[in-house]
């Protein structure tokens, strides 16, 4: 019975002949007719910067209009850390990892991608479900209507950044496009969720899960299954 290879004992393959033969065995082929949009690197970079600025402006403008939560100054530092700072940090990390170039220009390792694609949204859910409450939730704070209102708003807040990503990250990912697009979706969802946590003062766990955390999950799924279609090179 042959044992599985470990990190160092992969056998030499030179005894296996090549069924195709050597390079350049035929006449030089003709290059394809180049058509379709093909932005230069500078234009691509500008488009992505514009998309990022538009997304940040979108969130900032809505937070300005909707306003910060009234109890922000009285929240415990731990609550602010896990419900606001941590989502922002994970969102930024998700975006950085998704867009990371890597040593060979094909992005960062699949391990980093998959870990953060799970860790980011999962932590938001865990904090929403299990973080120590700063106070007893108000009466009727667990209403379906209230949760749906927040869910709809958070989805809209994540939607524009996702759209901006779809337009600016066309053909950006030649490898692991699904994971990378999921991470971009997670970043959009986490940013929106964090901003909603900055605005909405409802601390009820049901409200946090349905109204704030579900949109993060939706954004990840939209990234993984929709965004990847345009982002794959």
């Amino acid at each position: 019975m042959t044992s599985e290879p470990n990190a160092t004992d992969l056998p030499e393959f030179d005894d296996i002949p090549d069924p195709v033969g050597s390079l350049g065995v035929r006449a030089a082929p003709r290059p394809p007719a180049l058509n379709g949009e093909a932005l230069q690197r500078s234009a691509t970079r500008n488009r992505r910067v514009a998309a990022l600025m538009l997304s940040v402006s979108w969130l900032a403008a809505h937070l300005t209009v909707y306003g910060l939560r009234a109890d922000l100054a009285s929240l415990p530092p731990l609550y602010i850390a896990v419900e606001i700072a941590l989502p922002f940090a994970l969102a930024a990390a998700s975006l950085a990892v998704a867009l990371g170039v890597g040593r060979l220009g094909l992005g960062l390792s699949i391990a980093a991608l998959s870990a953060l694609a799970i860790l980011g949204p999962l932590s938001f859910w865990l904090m929403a479900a299990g973080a120590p409450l700063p106070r007893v939730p108000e009466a009727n704070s667990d209403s379906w209507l209230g949760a749906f209102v927040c869910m709809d708003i958070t989805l809209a807040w994540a939607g524009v950044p996702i759209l901006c990503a779809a337009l600016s990250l066309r053909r950006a990912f030649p490898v692991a496009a699904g994971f990378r697009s999921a991470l971009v979706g997670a970043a959009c969802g986490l940013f929106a969720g964090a901003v909603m946590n900055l605005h909405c003062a409802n601390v009820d766990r049901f409200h946090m899960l349905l109204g704030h955390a579900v949109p993060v999950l939706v954004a990840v799924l939209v990234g993984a299954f929709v965004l990847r279609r345009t982002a794959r090179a």
Partner: protein
Amino acid sequence: MNTVQPAAGATPIEVSPNPVGGSAELGPLDEAMSRYADGDETAFAEVFRGLSPRIQCFLQRLSGRRDVADDLMQETFLRMHRARGSFARGRSVVPWAYAIARNCYIDHTRSRSKLRLASGEGAELDVAAGPEASAEEAAFARRSALVVERVLAGLTVARREAFVLLRYEGLSVEAAAQVLGISEGAVKLRAFHAYEALRAALREGNS
């Protein structure tokens, strides 16, 4: 620059010895692609000339068919053209081209709803036994190549592409893992299983 001897009557094709997964030093092909990504339209011909034989052979090893490989190669360079704005500055073009070529092949297999090639279906071989090989050696080489082609066609896409990248394309394990979007351990495992199947078939064929 390495000049590869083509078939009789064809134009010699120069292939740059771009390191793949090894040294960080960029070659002329990488610089050409970088210039093309920055808008130098004349650089595309240089990239195509340097990469097309390699990509064509890679696709033929995956698909087992020259006509399919030709079409997919054209599609690969078209996608490279459209994605040039995303080509990372200071990186090698070869792994990037392989990744896009692989995507073209995967899309082709999905559109045909086939993940395994029918053994011998439309397969064409360019067996090189060497200019001074005897008739017996040439026949042996052809027989071995047929066995390899048959076994490769019977492998899953995952094992076939891992083995092809390591054995025939000369990629390092790290580079192959990056191109395939899997871990280095997974690359080794897939290539090992492919190698075992090939070696067993060759041993059986030679006995």
